[in-house]
């Protein structure tokens, strides 16, 4: 059920995040070796609730989630 980390997918995620959060610091990695993890620090998160922050990350990755390529990620956000 768990597929090997796909470098192509990681690259696509990084592209999407760069587009949505141009000045952010972020890192996409494979966490425990099986599941993708996004850590992102962005000024866009200021004054936003955690739910809103996570929704913004999901929105940036929306096409990858909708296509089923990406279905489980851990997200860790912080505001600058």
């Amino acid at each position, binding site marked *: 059920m768990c597929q090997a980390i796909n470098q192509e997918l990681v690259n696509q995620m990084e592209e999407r995040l760069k587009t949505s959060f141009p000045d952010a610091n972020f890192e996409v990695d494979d966490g425990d070796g099986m*599941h993708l993890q996004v850590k992102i620090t962005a000024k866009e998160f200021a004054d936003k609730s*955690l*739910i809103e922050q*996570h*929704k913004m990350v*999901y929105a940036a990755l*929306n*096409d990858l*989630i*909708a*296509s*089923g390529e990406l*279905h*489980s*990620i*851990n*997200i*860790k956000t912080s505001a600058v």
Partner: protein
Amino acid sequence: MNDSKDSEVKITITSDHKKKIESLIKEHKIFAFMKGTPDMPACRFSAQMKDIFDELKIPFQGYNILEDFEIRQAIKDFTGWPTLPQIFIKGNFIGGVDILQELKDSGELQKMAAL
């Protein structure tokens, strides 16, 4: 509608789905839409959620969306949140397991569940 290449059947959220979701989150103080059941979570994230609640001895109820495709879609429309599990405390959506973990680490979860 966006033009994503979503191959899943699109289900329109009906007032029945909405009512069912609303009554579940109203009737249970802590409620999760999850893969599997509270006793037997069926994915890593739902298991992680259970571990957090178990560690804090916070009881919760859950709805197994693997057995109800319509609610599985409807809950995502309801909250605007694309992944599972989805956790509610006293009728309020709090997010997924990453947020649950952060709330636990900050001590906020214990307060939210206590009152």
